[in-house]
C-alpha cells in the first residue's frame, strides 16, 4: 500500500517583482510634512536656531559689554528690548544666551541617551543579575525628583557647564535605560534574534546590529521631550546661580537678574522666560510629531 504520495507540484509564479515595486511606489500615508505638530515644531525651532546662530548679524552689540551711561533703557530702535541694570543690550544677550543654553542642552541630551541605551540593552538582553543591578540603580535614581537630584548633584560638583553635563547624564540615563530595556525584552523574543544566534553571531553583534535598530526609535522620540527637560534644568540651575556663570549670557541668569526690576522693566525677565517657553513648546511639538510618525502600527 502506498501511503504517502505527493501531487507533482507545479509551481505557480511567486509574487512578481512588479507587484512589489508598485507597493513601494504607493505614497506612504504618513508623510512627515503632513504632520501639523511636527511642522509647527520644526518651524519654531528652525527660527530660533537661525536667530541664535545668526546672532552677530542681527545685533551689533556685544552681549557682555557694559554701558553704565545707558542702564535700564527702555525699548527703542537702538536697543530693541532695552538694556539691563549694567547697560548691556537685552536683545543681544537673549540671542547669545540662547546659543549657550541650546548648545548645552543638545550636547547634554546625548550623554544620557548613549549611556542609558547601552545599559538598557545589556539589562534587557542578558537579564539575570546584570539586569537586577542595573534596574536597582534605576530605581534609586527614579526615587528622587529629577530637579532635586540635578540641583543637589550640581551643588556638590560645583557650578559650571561640566557639572551640568555630569548631573544630567547621571540622572537622565534611567529613562533611556527603562525604555530600551522594555523594548529589548520584547524584541529579543522575536525569531530573528534566535536566527541570528543560530547563525553564530556574537551577543554584542546581535545587540548592536539586530536589536538596537529595531528599538532605538522609542529612545529617539523620548530624547526630544528630554531636551525640553534639559533646557528647563539648565535654565533653572542658572537661575539659581548654579549653572552658567556670569558674565556669560544665559536665559536663566537673565530671568533671575531681571526679577528686581519686574515692576518697572518687565521685559528683562519676561522675554527670556518666553524664549524658554517657546523653545520648549517647539521641541515638544517635534517630539509629538515624531512619535506619531515613527510609532509602529500607524
Amino acid at each position, binding site marked *: 500500500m502506498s501511503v504517502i504520495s505527493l501531487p507533482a507540484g507545479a*509551481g505557480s509564479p511567486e509574487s512578481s517583482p512588479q507587484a512589489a515595486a508598485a507597493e513601494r511606489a504607493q505614497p506612504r500615508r504618513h508623510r512627515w510634512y503632513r504632520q501639523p505638530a511636527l511642522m509647527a515644531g520644526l518651524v519654531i525651532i528652525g527660527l530660533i536656531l537661525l536667530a541664535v546662530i545668526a546672532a552677530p548679524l542681527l545685533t551689533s552689540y556685544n552681549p557682555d559689554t557694559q554701558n553704565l551711561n545707558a542702564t535700564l533703557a527702555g525699548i527703542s530702535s537702538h536697543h530693541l528690548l532695552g538694556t539691563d541694570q549694567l547697560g548691556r543690550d537685552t536683545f543681544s544677550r537673549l540671542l547669545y544666551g540662547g546659543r549657550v543654553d541650546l548648545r548645552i542642552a543638545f550636547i547634554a541630551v546625548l550623554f544620557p541617551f548613549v549611556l542609558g541605551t547601552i545599559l538598557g540593552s545589556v539589562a534587557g538582553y542578558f537579564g539575570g543579575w546584570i539586569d537586577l543591578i542595573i534596574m536597582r540603580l534605576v530605581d534609586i535614581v527614579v526615587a528622587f525628583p529629577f530637579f532635586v537630584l540635578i540641583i543637589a548633584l550640581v551643588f556638590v560638583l560645583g557650578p559650571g557647564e561640566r557639572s551640568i553635563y555630569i548631573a544630567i547624564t547621571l540622572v537622565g540615563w534611567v529613562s533611556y535605560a527603562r525604555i530600551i530595556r522594555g523594548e529589548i525584552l520584547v524584541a529579543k523574543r522575536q525569531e530573528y534574534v*534566535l536566527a541570528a544566534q543560530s547563525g553564530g553571531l556574537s551577543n554584542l553583534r546581535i545587540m548592536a546590529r539586530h536589536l538596537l535598530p529595531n528599538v532605538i526609535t522609542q529612545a529617539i522620540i523620548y530624547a526630544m521631550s528630554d531636551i525640553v527637560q534639559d533646557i528647563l534644568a539648565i535654565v533653572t540651575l542658572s537661575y539659581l546661580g548654579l549653572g552658567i556663570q556670569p558674565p556669560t549670557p544665559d536665559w536663566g541668569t537673565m530671568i533671575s537678574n531681571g526679577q528686581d526690576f519686574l515692576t518697572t522693566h518687565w521685559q528683562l525677565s519676561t522675554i527670556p522666560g518666553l524664549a524658554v517657553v517657546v523653545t520648549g513648546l517647539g521641541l515638544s511639538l517635534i517630539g509629538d510629531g515624531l512619535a506619531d510618525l515613527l510609532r509602529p502600527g500607524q
Partner: protein
Amino acid sequence: MNGGESMSQPLLQVDDLHVQIASRRGIVRAVDGVSLEVPAGEAVGLVGESGSGKSMTLRAILGVLPPEARVTAGRVLLDGVDLAQLDNRRLNQIRGPKIAMIFQEPMSALNPVMRVGSQIAEGPQVHMGMNRRQSAERALELMRRVGIPDPERRFSSFPHEFSGGMRQRVMIAIALSCEPSLILCDEPTTALDVTIQDQILRLLVRLCRESGTSLVFVTHDLPVVAQVCHQLAVMYAGRIVEHGSVEGVLTQPCHPYTLGLVRSAPDVDHPRSSLVAIPGAPPSLVSPPAGCRFHPRCKFAEEDCTVSDPPLRLLDAGHATACLHYERCLDELRTEGADR
C-alpha cells in the same frame, strides 16, 4: 538507533538527550532521552505533533534553547565534539560554518529593519573573514543560487518587500552562506502555500545534494518527509517512538502513533472516505503517563503497556520501534489492505 546499518562515523550523533523546561506547573521534560544519528549527506526527518519536542531537540543541538530550558543530560556529538559541553563563544564558531538553521516563519526570522543582502552577507563577514565587498559578492551569488530574480536590485530590499516563498529562499541563502555540513530545518515550509512549498523543498534538496550537506528536517507533514528525507524518526511526548528508513516507516509503521499519523495524512492515490484522527490529546510533559506514553490514546494498549516505558527495539534493517505490540499495527494494515 541505527544498529542494523553498518555505517562509518555519523556526522551528527545525538545521544540520550534530555531537555527540561522550568515552568509554573513544574518541570516539563520536553526532550526525554532522544538519540539520533545523522549520516553525512543524508536527510533525517523528525516528525510528531506540536509539543512533541521536535523543535526543542533542534534548538538543543544548536545550543539556542530558551532561557528557561536546559540540557540536563546527553551528548550532541558533531565530528566527535560534544556541543553540549561547549561555551557560547566556542558554539558561535560552530553555528553558521558547521550547522545552520532554517525557521518556520521566514517573515519573523528575518530582521525587519535590515536589508536582505546585508543579512545574507553577515555570516560570511563574521565566519569567513570576508570584507564588505567580498561578502556582498557572496550574497549576490547565493541569491542567484536560491533563485531570487534580479539579485542586484533585491540586495537592498527589506524583508517586507518579499513574498513568503522569496523570504524562505533568503533564509536558505543565509543558511548556506557559510557552507555548513548540516542544516537543521524547523518546519521550513509549513507557513507557505502548497505550490511554493514544493518549489522550496526541491530547491533545498537540490542545493543540499550539490554541496553534500546533511539535513535534519522537523515537520508534521508526512508527504514532505517522503519527498525530502532518507530516514525518519517519529517523536511522541519527548521520546522517539519509531525510527527507520522513510520507506520502511511509512509503509510498515510499527507503532500505533506512526500508524495514526500516516492515516491522518491525505493520500491522493488511494483517497480514503475519511481521514482518521488520533483520539485524545498529547500527554502533559510535566507528569507523563506511566508506562508507554501513548497508551491512553492507543487502541492496542494492554496491561503491560501501562507498566514500564518500552525502549526502542530493533526489528530489522535499521527499523526500530518502542511499541510492545507492534505486530498489531502490521495486522491492521494488512486487513485494511485486503479490504481495499
